[in-house]
């Protein structure tokens, strides 16, 4: 394999592995921008993965040979998104309305969500009596590129630009929209105000509760889609909890790495995606694989330290992150 081929293969593998993180992270960024720290991302991604697979599988079985790939993708997306919304709705209700501690609620949601995802996945396997899988025609619409063959066949650029699955492109669009929303729109400004200082926002007439609910529930839905993307592309439409486990926590790490800016997750997720697989593709002598694998976490910890030492205003976490807002409590 020539060096160029190697680099092309490495980049496309990094993007493929970064795609679930792209969703997991940007969803959590939206959530944290509202001041809610949802540590349930791991659970949400499990739920998204299991329910996305369940949706596509059920549809594939029901439609038989006439199943349409586009419909299957949409169904998987909707199922995963809905599962994530339901999970983060529980979180929102407990932390925003009932003012429960966010860290603990998030962890409880992770326990619940990983359990539920695992349960649904296992149950599907028991019911089917073997590995759950969808037809090859449908698989292609998940894992294959949406672009015509001649574009993908362009040397180098074809693979680097047109060679990814549909979720990569969808994710890029979603992140750009989110960036625009947070940075350029009035509602985005309000949302950031809620995350920085809810009492100020409240005094300015912004409905803190509503913004937090919306950001957390939609953010949770987006994070859950990341789990579905993992199951349907990297895991090859088979329920694989060992591969999915840890993905949510890396997404949380990536939120810090991206300094709470969605636009950074475009390249951040590719970088972390590369770090996730680099130990297979580019082994470095003297550095054991297991140590190689923790590099994303070490890098994130270092970023966290740097950010707190430099105290640059625009790089800080949302000031009210992790705190409940109680209006009567002044």
């Amino acid at each position, binding site marked *: 394999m020539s060096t160029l081929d190697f680099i092309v293969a490495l980049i496309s593998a990094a993007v493929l592995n970064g795609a679930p993180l792209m969703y997991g992270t940007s969803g959590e960024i939206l959530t944290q921008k509202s001041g809610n*720290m949802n*540590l349930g991302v791991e659970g949400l991604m499990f739920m998204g993965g299991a329910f996305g697979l369940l949706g596509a599988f059920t549809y594939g079985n029901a439609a038989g040979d006439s199943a349409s790939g586009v419909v299957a993708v949409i169904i998987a997306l909707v199922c995963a998104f809905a599962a994530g919304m339901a999970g983060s709705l529980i979180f929102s209700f407990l932390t925003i309305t009932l003012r429960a501690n966010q860290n603990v609620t998030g*962890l409880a*949601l*992770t326990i619940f969500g990983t359990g539920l995802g*695992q349960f649904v996945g296992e149950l599907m396997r028991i019911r089917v009596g073997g590995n759950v899988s969808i037809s090859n025609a449908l698989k292609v619409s998940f894992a294959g590129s949406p672009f015509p063959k001649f574009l993908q066949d362009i040397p180098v650029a074809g693979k680097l630009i047109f060679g990814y699955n549909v979720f990569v492109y969808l994710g890029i669009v979603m992140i750009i929209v989110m960036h625009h929303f947070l940075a350029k729109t009035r509602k985005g400004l309000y949302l950031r105000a809620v995350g920085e200082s809810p009492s100020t926002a409240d005094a300015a*007439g912004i409905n803190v509760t509503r913004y937090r609910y919306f950001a957390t529930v939609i953010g949770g839905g987006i994070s859950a889609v990341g789990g579905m993307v993992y199951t349907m592309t990297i895991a090859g439409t088979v329920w694989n909890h060992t591969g999915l486990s840890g993905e949510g*926590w890396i997404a949380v790490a990536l939120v810090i790495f991206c300094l709470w800016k969605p636009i950074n997750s475009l390249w951040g997720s590719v970088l972390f995606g590369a770090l996730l697989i680099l130990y297979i593709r580019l082994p470095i002598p003297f550095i054991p694989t*297991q140590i190689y694998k923790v590099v994303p976490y070490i890098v994130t910890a270092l970023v966290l*330290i740097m950010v707190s030492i430099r105290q640059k205003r625009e790089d800080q976490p949302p000031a009210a992150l992790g705190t409940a807002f109680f209006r009567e409590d002044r």
Partner: protein
Amino acid sequence: MHEKTPLIRLSKREDMPKARVWMIRLGAFIFALLIGMLVFAVAGADPIEAYVTIFKAALGKTTGIRQVVRNAIPLLGTALALAPCFRMRYWNIGAEGQITMGAIAASFFAVHCRNMASLPLLLIMGVGSMVLGGIWSLIPALFKSRWRTNETLFTLMMNYIAIGIAAWLIGGPWEGKPGSQIMPVFSSNAVLPKVLGIQCGWIIVLVLTVVIFVYMRYTKHGYEVQVLGESENTARYAGMNVPKIIMRTAVLSGAICGLVGFLIASGTHGTLYSNVAGGAGFTGITVCWLAQLNPFAMIVIALLLGVLTKGSSTLQTSMAIPASITDIITGIILLCMLGCEFFINYRMHFRENHAKEAK
């Protein structure tokens, strides 16, 4: 935007009688079990039969009870470790990593001091695990007290670094059969003795329960931690050395977590796994919080979760329900219990009908 009085107004309350507080919590627990029945029904199992199986398996036989206690030891130990941190409002969610580091230190001595007599070896393993757990917890605390680095996120990252180190050790320097990625079991002098058929860690965590209770309630340290948790400014005006208190408490917490790691590695598994903490570091956080940081309440909650875990592993074999249903039920219980605190801490005032308030 708020022309009207809201439908429900809230105010804080601290005067609810103890009996009612526990009634509410019990109610939430029963509510959670009812939702759990739904889950069983969806899974195609008879809910009543499922619950009966769980409790019979866990409490019907001596072996079951032993397993329950074994499950509860790390949960109780972790919850105890975290109580002072949480009282201080220092969100140490790095217990998983501190446990792992403790287990690594214990394994280090188990590997390298193979020929020592059992008692001194176990003591060294215990002390070593506490030191390494403490150091692992000190790192984020240092940055927190010096630069206000967010400790929730930092301790979270430290978890995975610790797990990675453990994975490397058992697959590299400490690997047994080449290629097995498994560490050989400790020699018998490095395994904790059993008392009443269960590793003696249960005595250690019970003693710790009393110690932590006294520490938090009756010592100067405990007082300082409480003041700092209420208000950092008050602590500073009172002349307390805030960074010192943060670091001291974090080290204490990490040391106890490290000890838990030693108990798991030496007492439960008799070897080191990369996921030696097995989620206890995370579940312990919820145990600690649900117990309202009360050490004695932690015993009850840890045992309860122990029952669930043991019971549902039986469920998998006898009723063919995936064991992951434990996590679902545990999660539901935790979420319900978290939610019910609201009704204890707040009083709701419903809007009364005043004609003049209509816009």
